[in-house]
């Protein structure tokens, strides 16, 4: 009974979080001494699909259907559940992306499966138990959740599992799902995507600004630093509440939770609600002129100084580092 992994694409290309989830699925398949089957929905080239083999998928089910070109939550969930049933898969894994968050609960209901959302590690399987560690209380804690159902759905948060390249080329097979008209009631009108910007939830590096930056006109240096580092930009709640930056950049308990390798907080004091959203970052750098800012207590590196002096110097130093690298 294979493990089934849903591999999400963006405009026909797989992204980093997709390779993470395939690597994660591979490891779960190995735990259970079984094979890993991927399912892709949408217009993706044969080469791109076969390339999933590199991360450990043995077979790829390719669903290429005009009606499923764009993401329709209800229909995609039906297709993935149908594939799981046909393959006899008991474990379905997917990324805890915006789309994945819509799919996991629907697939769970269809398969009568327990759903572990926001997993941060491989499941622990011993003595007939299946336990998944997931984020809880908006990053302030983790919960160990036991899935007691026969079938299981797990969604993995981005940057939580390391990509492993070990396989070869995957066998690509066409998969023709039995679509019901009721699943296709949603119509996509428009997709607006800024491809020149790094997407925040799965960014490796995040540069985040707070009220200490005094106004939206001062975000130029934040963007410049982010561009140099290939980072996404983010902000604290007061900043998005004030309309300086869009809500989609708000990181924290009531915004987006991020788990990058490097989080650089500039002019953010570090209120408990903000810290909740960034606590799973691997390395935290804080730049703040107030040495008493609570953010320094959870930081790995800190600079006590005025952002308007420190950040331009940091930009210069990164440029110099890049020129010498």
């Amino acid at each position, binding site marked *: 009974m294979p493990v089934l992994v849903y591999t999400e694409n963006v405009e026909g290309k797989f992204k980093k979080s997709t390779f993470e989830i395939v690597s994660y699925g591979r490891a779960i398949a190995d735990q259970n001494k079984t094979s890993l089957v991927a399912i892709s929905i949408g217009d993706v080239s044969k080469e791109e699909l076969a390339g999933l083999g590199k991360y450990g998928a043995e077979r790829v089910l390719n669903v290429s259907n005009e009606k499923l070109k764009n993401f329709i939550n209800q229909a995609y969930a039906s297709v993935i559940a149908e594939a799981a049933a046909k393959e006899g898969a008991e474990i379905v894994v997917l990324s805890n992306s915006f789309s994945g968050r819509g799919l996991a*609960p*629907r697939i769970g*209901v269809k398969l009568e499966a327990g759903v572990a959302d926001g997993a941060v590690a491989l499941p622990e399987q011993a003595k007939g138990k299946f336990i998944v560690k997931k984020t809880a*209380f908006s990053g302030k804690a983790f919960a160990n959740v036991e899935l007691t159902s026969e079938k299981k759905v797990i969604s993995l948060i981005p940057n939580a599992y390391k990509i492993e390249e070990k396989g070869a080329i995957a066998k690509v097979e066409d998969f023709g799902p039995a679509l019901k008209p*009721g699943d296709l009631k949603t119509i996509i009108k428009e997709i*607006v995507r800024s491809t020149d910007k790094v997407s925040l939830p799965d960014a490796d590096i995040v540069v985040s600004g707070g009220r200490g930056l005094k106004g939206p006109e001062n975000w130029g240096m934040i963007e410049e630093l982010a561009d140099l580092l290939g980072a996404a930009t983010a902000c604290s709640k007061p900043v998005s509440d004030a309309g300086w930056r869009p809500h989609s950049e708000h990181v924290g308990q009531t915004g987006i939770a991020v788990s990058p*390798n*490097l989080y650089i907080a500039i002019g953010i004091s570090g209120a408990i*609600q903000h810290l909740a959203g960034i606590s799973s970052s691997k390395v935290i750098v804080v730049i703040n002129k107030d040495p008493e800012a609570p953010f320094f207590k959870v930081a790995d590196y*800190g600079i006590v100084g005025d952002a308007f002096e420190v950040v331009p110097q940091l930009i210069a130093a990164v440029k110099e580092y890049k020129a010498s690298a």
Partner: protein
Amino acid sequence: MKILVCVSNVPDTTTKITFTDNNTQFNTAGVQFILNPYDEIALARAIELTDGGNGSATVINVGEVSTEPTIRKALAIGATDAVRINAKPHDAWFVASQIAAYVKSNPFDLILTGRESIDYNGSKVAGMLGELLDIPSVSIIKKLDVNGTDVTVEREIEGGKEILTAPLPIVAGTAEGVAEPKIPNMRGIMSARSKPLVVVEPVTVSTLSNVLDYETPKPRGQVKLVPADDVAKLVGLLHDEARVI
């Protein structure tokens, strides 16, 4: 139109999270419980859409009697009436099953949830409800408009947004941008006491998951301070020591 708003009773955002009984129970001692912030957004939009007698905004909560202050707060903000399903919310599957059972005998045109609750952050109830009721569901929306029998929503996607339409009824999970949360006024607080709050007994639901215990994030070591006049040193540390650039 009839709108159902699913609400959770959650620890206040400033709460320091601790556990008791070998880390198996959330320590509620001294914790202030609030209406889940994302649910406040859902409720505010439901009130706007039904403003001026254009239908009703019902709130529903799966919880024990201790959640009633939060339900009364929702009524004070402007909900028309409320339903409490009298059970401990075991997990998202349990909650969604209870609400679906209620909706099957009490239909609604639009069902709103917050994008997630700030305690378990599952974002699961909206999708599960959609599946149980066999209607479309959209998670994490930033805008919602109703035009006759259709609903148009803006959904958040990585690096952008997607605009989609669907025929009512649907389930949608609201995030910042959908509406500004409303603060109850004195009239609202007074009238909340007399608004109907119906208590319904739960249906039997199979158990699919259990929380065994909790962990808190490992504390980080002491912060390494870099002098403000030697910023290049930070870049060196990030490259050589932390290996993140």
